């Protein structure tokens, strides 16, 4: 009887473990599927704000405009039709909010029922007009010519250099500065954290005596417990002014500030994982090395590090993963300017910071929303590539041994 229960309990546990494994894998797949489904939707969307019509006078020879030309026009950097392939005449901008400058409230009708007709009149009367207005006021007998923009292409999205996700009438979605910003900050962080972390790990595993280790270990683990927003605040108040002073910069919110903060945040992971790995080196191997006359340092870099290299690569993956995905601290210290950085001493905008700062306002299902999901996909692919590379490298190392 007792045996039966024992068996039953064991089966139950095995069943639960299988179930949890299956559920976990399915959830991960589901999330990835959802991420890509939403993200890839952006490539079937027009950059023009939903429900907006863009129109010109019939006589105007300009048949197409790009999103970047529309932005330059509304910024008044392009003011003449000649610059976009039309006649030599100034561009007259008309937004629906301007309609009250042309007509009184009565002329628009109590329920705005005359608005389509009035827009027809305005577009006919002004040969140089470029009008933006809601599609529902597009009359059936509209006398002007509507302009349609091409959908956002993959090349535009990945290679574009301008990130203006909320401008009207047509958004600019170029994520190149964001991708480069993310890579730049993460690269700097790992450059700082990896050597420092490994050195600390070697010291703690091989050199420090147990008393020092017992103090050092909890202190380092404490670093992992500090919330990231506290790191961000520390960065903004201490690191940013310091960088500004040391390098004599006009502004301290730079990629370097982000890298330093992220480096500190990645340290505890790198140290504890790689130290654990080093401590699993069998005593016999180390003693054999010492017995052959190798010095302590030779033993460390010829025996201990090669033996624990897979653990060290895991530490590196986890560290990079933390650096690429970290949001709050970076949002606070890197300045978030969407420009392509050419040095560590310039402000950058990272992908996680962009998603965190903008997702709250992006209307669900709209183009901005989909663009942020597409950014999520890019972030996912970046981490995937790094993980696979490091896995391959450490597998290769193991083979060689």
């Amino acid at each position, binding site marked *: 009887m007792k045996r039966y229960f024992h068996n039953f309990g064991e089966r139950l546990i095995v069943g639960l473990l299988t179930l*949890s*494994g299956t*559920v*976990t*894998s399915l*959830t*991960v797949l589901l*999330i990835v599927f959802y991420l890509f489904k939403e993200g890839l939707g952006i490539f079937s969307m027009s950059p023009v704000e939903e429900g907006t019509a863009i129109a010109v006078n019939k006589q105007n020879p300009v048949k197409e405009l790009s999103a970047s030309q529309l*932005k330059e026009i*509304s*910024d*008044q950097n392009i003011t003449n039709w000649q610059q976009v392939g039309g006649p030599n005449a100034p561009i007259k901008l008309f937004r*629906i*909010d301007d*309609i*009250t400058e042309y007509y009184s409230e009565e002329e628009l009708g109590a*329920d*705005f029922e005359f*608005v389509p007709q009035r827009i027809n009149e305005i577009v006919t009367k002004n040969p140089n007009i470029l009008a933006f*207005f*809601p599609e*529902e*006021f597009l009359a059936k007998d509209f006398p002007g010519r509507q302009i349609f923009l091409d959908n956002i292409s993959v090349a535009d999205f990945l290679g574009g250099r*301008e*990130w*203006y*996700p*909320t*401008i009207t009438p047509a958004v600019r979605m170029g994520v190149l*500065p964001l991708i480069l910003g993310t890579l730049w900050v993460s690269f700097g962080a790992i450059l700082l954290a990896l050597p420092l972390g490994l050195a600390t790990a070697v010291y703690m595993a091989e050199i420090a005596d147990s008393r020092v280790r017992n103090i050092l270990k909890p202190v380092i683990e404490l670093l992992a417990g500090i919330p990231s927003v506290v790191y961000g605040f520390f960065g*903004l*108040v201490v690191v*940013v*002014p310091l960088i*500004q002073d040391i390098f004599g910069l*006009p*502004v*301290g*919110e730079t990629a370097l500030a982000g890298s330093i903060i992220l480096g500190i945040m990645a340290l505890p992971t790198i140290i504890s*994982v790689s130290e654990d*790995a080093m401590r*699993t080196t069998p005593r016999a191997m180390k003693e054999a090395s010492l017995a052959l006359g190798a010095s302590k340092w030779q033993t460390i870099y010829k025996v201990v590090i090669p033996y624990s290299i*897979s*653990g060290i690569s*895991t530490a590196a993956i986890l560290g990079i993963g933390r650096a690429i995905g970290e949001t709050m601290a970076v*949002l*606070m210290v890197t*300045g*978030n*300017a*969407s*420009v392509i950085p050419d040095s560590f001493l310039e*402000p950058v*905008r990272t992908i996680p910071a962009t998603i*965190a*700062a*903008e997702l*709250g*306002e992006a*209307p669900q299902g709209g183009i901005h929303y989909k663009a942020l999901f597409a950014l999520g996909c890019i972030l996912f692919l970046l981490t995937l590539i790094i993980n696979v590379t490091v896995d391959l490298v450490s597998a290769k190392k193991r083979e060689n041994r």
Partner: protein
Amino acid sequence: MKITKERLFRKHAAGLLLITSLLGACGRGDTNNTAGNNPDDITITIKGSDTVLPLTQQEAENYMQKNAGAAITVVGGGTGVGISALQEGTTDIAMASRALKTGERLKLKGAKKNVKEALIAYDALSVVVHPENKVNQLTREQLEQIFTGKIKNWKEVGGNDEVIVAYSRETSSGTYEFFKEEVLDKKNYAPGILMMSATGSIVQSVSQTRGAIGYIGLAYETEDVKALSVSYDQGKTFVAPSVEAAKNKSYPISRPLFYFYDASVESRVKPFINYVLSPEGQKIVQDTGYVPLS
């Protein structure tokens, strides 16, 4: 062996997190805003501008303390979000940090809404610089050129030879939109502008960066930053930001804060709006750093 164990652990930890978040998502209740059975019970949903959010929260809290039957839910999200929620009928009151745009009025008309507005307070934006900056005043045109990246050095506007570092709020902020429409004449910000996620960060950064310029709500002004006088008439008169100047409309960068609601729910929301407009409600306006109506 070591690595597989670690992988397993990572997988499971991630799985647990995902499951928890999924469960959380399931539990999200729908915000149904039907009135309770008791006629004294009022349920109001308010949605919209993040600028008005702290004020409305404070008002709602005090109001609910006085009226035990009232339940007011206040949600942010931005002026545009509030107005589209009003159009869809998912909120009773839309908070707004600007008047309705013509396009929005047309849309609301199309949705058969008879929208009424209540002006509840004013808010003023201060343009702030580092306290050691020599410049004391700027015209609107100069501000526009600074934030669109045409003026890059303080010496072009009468200051020291120092690079201008312009700070802005994030795109999700109503303040960002207001500053763009009002000061930048609807032009877009320069791409190199630094975007901060909170007004507090702008104050912090401006106070520690010598060439900095930024814009903040009047209520956020501190000793660590210097507010500039602004001219809207090509430099004839400069006005310094203050509650008084915003009240008598001589300070140009100020904006009205509104509640919009549909006439069909007027009887339900009117008591709360009347409370906000009462002397007691207007005192809360002053206390939370906005400009009262009178």
